[in-house]
């Protein structure tokens, strides 16, 4: 239940990150606030500047993922940039996979209200469209990769 107690705080803390960045995401960091920025509501979400890397449970694949634009917003549709490689030393790209992303809120007993879909871009790169994390709090992120009909899952989590 630790997540349950910390969920509202997590929302606030991630929001504070945005406010510290000028109220409209990391792209505005350091900008001089102007009249338009003063009048805009702050944007809730989590800045994820660098790709996060996780290995599938079976140890076969490295999955890196990052929100397009480096920001995972609360309750706005967004996209993910995913790369998939084998766990060999050469990090051999895997380009023939299906990538299915499933995010859940264990504290709330539900997940996303969308089912994102992915598109292979070649060279082990994938674009996942249709992401929507409609609430702040703790989200698990399951990156399911299906290669030659066999599924593997890489697990991650973020606090929005």
């Amino acid at each position: 239940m630790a997540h349950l107690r910390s969920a509202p705080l997590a929302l606030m803390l991630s929001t504070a990150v945005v406010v510290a960045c000028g109220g409209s995401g990391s792209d505005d960091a350091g900008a001089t606030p102007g009249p338009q920025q003063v009048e805009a509501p702050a944007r809730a979400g989590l800045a994820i500047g660098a790709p996060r890397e996780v290995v599938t449970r079976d140890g076969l694949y490295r999955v890196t993922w990052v929100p397009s634009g480096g920001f995972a917003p609360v309750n706005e549709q967004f996209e993910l940039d995913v790369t998939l490689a084998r766990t060999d030393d050469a990090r051999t790209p895997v380009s023939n996979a299906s990538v299915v992303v499933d995010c859940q809120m264990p504290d709330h007993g539900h997940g996303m209200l969308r089912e994102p879909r992915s598109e292979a871009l070649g060279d082990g790169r994938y674009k996942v469209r249709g992401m929507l994390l409609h609430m702040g709090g703790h989200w698990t992120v399951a990156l399911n990769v299906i290669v030659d009909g066999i599924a593997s899952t890489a697990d991650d989590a973020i606090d929005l």
Partner: protein
Amino acid sequence: MGAESPEDHTLGMRTAAWLALCVCFVAACGGDAELSALEVRRRAAALGPFVPEGFTTAEVGAVLTCSPVPPAPADPTNKFADDPNAALLGQHLFFDRRLSKNGQTACATCHDPRDSFVDLDPLATGVLQLERHTPSLWNVAHQRWFFWDGRADSLWGQALIPIESPLEHAFTRSEVVRVVSEDTTLRVLYEGVFGELPAMEDKRRFPAWSRPVPQNDHAHVLAEEHAQRASEKGNDERPSRSHQHRTEEGATGSDWIHPHQRAWDWMHPVDQQSVTRAFVNVGKALAAYQRKLISRSAPFDVFVEGLREHDPEKLAELDAAQQRGLRLFLGRAQCASCHHGVLFSDFEFHDTRVPGEPLTDPGRSRGIEAVRSYEFGVSTKWSDDPEGPAREKVDFLPVHVHAGREFKTPTLRNVELTPPYMHNGSLPTLEAVIDFYADRANVAPDTGGGERILAKPMDLSLEDRADLVAFLKALTDDSLDPTLRARPE
């Protein structure tokens, strides 16, 4: 002089902070005291938001995501959304009772501007009683989905459903177009915006009371149930058969065709298209009007301005109880989990185990089915941007629908003015709503899809609950232009 109260002390601290800020500004300008208000705001913003006593920086950050309400977002699916003449036509239509079977039901019948655009009844009543409560229209242009189950994906698409629903207006698209066509004011306004109307005076081409009648439509099923109950009560006055869409006494169900459908089938497909186009335009005009129903100047919004501008007078717009309520709202009471953003809504759907009938209402799961196949969806030919971004929210809807009776998170702006509460109007007051979430004493049976954070009672004292209600009342702004509250002169 008596002893300084905590409130006095807090205000004193705020005033001191504000004075210090002003001194800094004046010094920075080389003694020029003629700073514009804009410059003061710019410099206050550069310092970061003010953090009132009792608040954390993180809490203030969360508050800043809830205000101000920005202008209504553009709607590319309705190219007339911001056309003032379309809005004027829409305002005429919103108050026009002729757009109903009984001649007594307008949009404004349930969305009564004298009662903050709702009807204050638990369940809405059009031509017949509905099974859900009239939703708020405040800031409706910001919504993502429409109706409690989100079965419409645009404001203009939403506006068309009640008109042909046998429970609400029980009207037809052909008669809507006829009313517009035969009224000089409406006709001039319509043709000035949308172009020529169909030749409705040719009643052979455009027979009365014609529309395509949907099969297995839930509103028609409910209308049939109304008719059945009236019949069982032995009413001498037989219920109208036009509510029904499949069955009729003395006929085999599958053979019977609704008279509206018969009339529709009589029309040439080109004329069907022209009538439907005009009907869609009526929806787009109604949407253009409803986009003007804005509430964005509540005491809470002034308070947030005060945070941004370090202005003690604006900060004083929320009293101590309301500020405590705000902190509870964001934190321990967990309201902000769903009620966040500028409308205090995530615009999505949750099962909070709301009590009251009907427990058979599946909410969002039926809404998802309906919105996918909706005749006037944002990706249909009737949309002005069928391939645009608006369709993405529908494209990515889940194939595997959640368990549970999920209903849309309502906005909390002007919530004080729009009782009773919940999708079925089952909770009469804000106090009852807070008690429901805190005590979990009268929850509906668990469907397995309920919000888990609400599984147990919350530890909220009577003072906490009163503070939460006090905060909710700080979201009231009913200062809409009076000329938008009535049919135009």
